[in-house]
């Protein structure tokens, strides 16, 4: 199964990358943009999707500073 995991910085932690992008967009003429956050996407083929949460907890995300979301995936 092809799984996709989104990893994003925990709310409340300063995200200067997100802020930098948020500042850059109006300069290009895009208005009305707020709350930009930059994270990571991990894609993998996995035989046992039940293992995904443990993979996230142990390696793919750092639970202290990141949240993760396992997206449903197509076979």
């Amino acid at each position, binding site marked *: 199964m092809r799984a996709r995991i989104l990893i994003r910085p925990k709310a409340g*932690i*300063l995200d*200067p*990358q997100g802020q*930098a992008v948020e500042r850059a967009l109006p300069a290009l003429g895009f208005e009305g943009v707020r709350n930009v956050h930059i994270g990571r996407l991990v894609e993998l083929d996995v035989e046992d999707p039940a293992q995904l949460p443990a993979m996230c907890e142990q390696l793919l995300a*750092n639970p202290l*500073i990141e949240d993760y979301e396992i997206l449903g995936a197509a076979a």
Partner: protein
Amino acid sequence: MRFGVIQFPGSCDERDALAAASRVGDAVLLWHRDHDLQGVDAVIVPGGFSYGDYLRAGALARFSPIMVEVERFARHGGLVLGICNGFQVLCEAGLLSGALLPNTSLRFVCRQVLLDVVNPATSWTRACERGDRLSIPAKHQTGRYWAPEPVLDELEANGQVVLRYATGNGFNGSARDIAGVSNHAGNVVGLMPHPEHAVDPLTGSADGLALFESAALVAA
């Protein structure tokens, strides 16, 4: 006094750490794939970009075979110092609280900074006095120390904040200007600046020697 310096693929400052430690005792390199700490009295996890900083800085290095031994050594009271990337590895491994995040400026900065010694009682600051000011270079892009507020309060209360950037010297946005922390027992310390690059006035300052001398005092 025998120091062991871990070498991961992508470590940069391990030879510098080896040279610095050699001024105070014997020092050997410990290969990341080995399970043998070679009977050292203290372990140094050095700076660099272990495993290319892939995924997160230190995230992959913490799972190398040598780190299994380092964790066991630390839990039994062994002396462990994590410098820069080493600090990141120790946080990822859960041997130290908190995490290191990208500098607020998002830029890599290499600069000589002044550090205040907050706790001179840890295994790596025993040779210092409270309030000592150490001139030590820092060079990193991911050095903003962070932990949830209650954890920070606890670290302060327990004397686990070991080093702070002197006023005006912090550049990465670390919470409470924290430059280095220890575990509860004080045998494991992590810091972002590089004491191994401050052991010779010819190349800067010699204030970093105090950390290595502290370990030798403790191990003696």
